[in-house]
């Protein structure tokens, strides 16, 4: 065992020296390799952070949201609807909610106007999300005007700015009082957007939804768990599609690695011939080359991954944002919370290191079986 370790140390030593001697030859491959890891890692880190963000948002949202359907379309909750739901066992609270979207022509972005269940701002005051704070240059106590869909201009005073914690949702949020909301959107009195139900026991959620559908056939209950599942699936799917698109790049990289590994320079061929002549075994040469591949792979993986991390979490993945974020094209800007996941790193490893290993295997073997007497035949 000790002998074995000593041998590997020698091989690694030799490999390091030989890599250092052939910097120019290896640097190209290393660059491409690093770039590949960087791109793939950016995609996975980014989607994973989005997934996490969505999950964090949904943790705070109610277990069941009830919408009313008219002709298959989402409609307002009419007066008296809440009462029809009546008491369902397991439901802790029922809240009718008011919210809507507003397109701001100035910043060309969509904002979510909402009436919070508690601590609503006073009439004529609003609380804004961080994105709005940035794009419109707002601060507490500033005034701001929005032109409503009916054409009238409404002016609000900014009472506060929301904290950054979960930016993905709160970024574009504008909170206001019920009175202001109804006035701004000309929202009919007694009508609501939807109803939120909180259910304490997760096992009960399903039953609550079933009872709801029975009591109100025109209602559409949306369960939080289902939304979570759907999000996860959609993000994974997107990530998968992007990775599949990258497979062409992986293939190209494999071919490059193959070619680099098989196109040994005359110098390198001579070296392997010398090593074999002075007593290195074919297996030793294969191991030496294996260590070379490992060193290149690990360097590329590490550098690429760290670069991707910086790219995603410090530069907000500026390169892939438009493809992956999807719905958020209209968002001015938001920051992701750093997160690394083991499965993702492992997956990334499968996408980069194993194809590399497979691509260089045959060329390595071909190099290693150089005739030991080649150096004497000159």
């Amino acid at each position, binding site marked *: 065992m000790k002998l074995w370790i000593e041998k590997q140390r020698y091989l690694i030593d030799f490999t390091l020296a030989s890599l250092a001697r052939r910097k120019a030859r290896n640097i190209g491959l290393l660059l491409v390799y690093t770039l590949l890891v960087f791109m793939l890692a950016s995609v*996975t880190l980014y989607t994973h952070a989005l997934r996490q963000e969505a999950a964090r948002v949904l943790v705070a949202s109610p277990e069941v949201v009830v919408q009313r*359907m008219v002709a*298959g379309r989402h409609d307002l909750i009419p007066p008296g609807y809440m009462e029809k739901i009546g008491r369902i066992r397991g439901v802790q609270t029922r809240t009718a909610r008011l919210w809507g979207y507003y397109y701001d022509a100035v910043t060309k972005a969509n904002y979510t106007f909402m009436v919070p269940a508690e601590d609503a701002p006073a009439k004529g005051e609003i609380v804004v999300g961080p994105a709005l704070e940035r794009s419109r240059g707002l601060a507490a106590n500033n005034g701001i005007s929005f032109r409503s869909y009916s054409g009238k201009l409404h002016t609000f005073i900014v009472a506060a700015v929301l904290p950054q914690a979960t930016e993905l949702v709160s970024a574009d949020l504008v909170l206001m009082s019920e009175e202001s909301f109804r006035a701004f959107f000309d929202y009919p009195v007694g009508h609501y957007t939807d109803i939120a139900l909180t259910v304490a026991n997760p096992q009960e959620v*399903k039953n609550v*939804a*079933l009872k709801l*559908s029975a009591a109100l056939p025109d209602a*559409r*209950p*949306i*369960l939080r768990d*289902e*939304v*979570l*599942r*759907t999000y*996860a*699936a*959609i993000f*994974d*799917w997107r*990530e*998968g*599609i992007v*990775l*599949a698109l990258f*497979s062409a790049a992986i293939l190209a990289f494999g071919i490059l690695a193959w070619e680099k590994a098989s196109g040994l320079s005359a110098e390198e061929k001579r070296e392997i011939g010398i090593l074999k002549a002075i007593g290195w075994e*074919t*297996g030793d040469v*294969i191991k030496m080359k294996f260590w070379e591949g490992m060193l290149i792979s690990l360097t590329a993986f590490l550098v690429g991954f760290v670069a991707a991390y910086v790219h995603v979490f410090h530069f907000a993945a500026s390169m892939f944002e438009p493809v992956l974020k999807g719905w958020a094209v209209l968002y001015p800007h938001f920051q992701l919370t750093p997160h690394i996941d*083991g*499965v*993702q790193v*492992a*997956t990334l*490893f*499968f*996408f980069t290191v*194993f*194809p590399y*290993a*497979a691509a260089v*295997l*045959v060329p*390595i*073997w071909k190099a*290693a*079986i150089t005739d030991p007497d080649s150096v004497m035949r000159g």
Partner: protein
Amino acid sequence: MLFQPAIIALLLASTLCVLALVGSAPFAVDVIRRWDIRSGSERQLQLERRTYLFSTLLTLVLVLQLAAVLLFVFNAEKMSGMFVGAMCAVGTLNVNAFGFPALNGKIAVFFLAAMWLAINHVDSRARDYPLVRIKYGLLLALAPLLAGSAWAELQYFLDLKADVITSCCGSLFSEGSPTIAAEASALPPIPAMWLFYGSLGAAVVLAAVHGLGGGRQRWSGYLLALASGVAFVATIAGILAFVSLYIYEHPHHHCPFCILKPEYNYQGYWLYVPLFGATAAGLAAGAVQPFARIASLREVIPEFSRRMAAIAANGFFLTAAIASFMIWQSRLILLE
């Protein structure tokens, strides 16, 4: 549901393995047909050099299979959120009939590759390479198994349909869809404990007998391989039946996978690493026994077999000791 990153990665790995083996099959056939160790011809030299390629390839397959087993389980764990009723990896694997066969196939290929590499190892220590034909015959036999395991995996993934909101309306999946067995079925704890400690003990004793006998008794080598196989199955059954309960400190959470999660401090690795290592070593010791009488292997095989027995004995002992330690540490009281 193929467009999931981890699934693509796993399929990529399987494809690589299958391609490597299938692609090398004609060369293996060539070696079987033309091998003549006494010949000094250039062709014989080429065939000999090819053997290096095969052993490197198989090593790659072995590593890939091991990594794939891990990723497969991790991914199942991660996807459990997408299936109603699936609480962890077990549930995800139960979503269709191919989940567990695919996993078992991977584990089987891993052990078979380990056994092949053991035979390859002893063969390459003998000056006349006496097992070349047998070795490449076995390699050809391994190829369909590998392909079968890859096929099961593909079927499993093709048949995975996440319970997600597909149309514009929220739906209730739980109604129509059959419920998934979220938990693996498990033995009652007491017989499982007997089985667990009994089989691990037997494996340790047999490995010790074989190893102390210098690896020379063939019967003990065969028995060691048998005991290793049994101990592997029994240990997994034991982990399911009681070890996992102690780790989770929950009397009904039978799951062999959750113990790999960070929530449980990755304790599973402490159990599985020695278990897989010991089982592979025990099986390897048995795999080389049929050839122990070949003249050029008379010295090589006992030596190799003795070393494998030592690894197996230590590994199985370690598995039992670690499991006992985890039980002792646990606050769960399962047996009065």
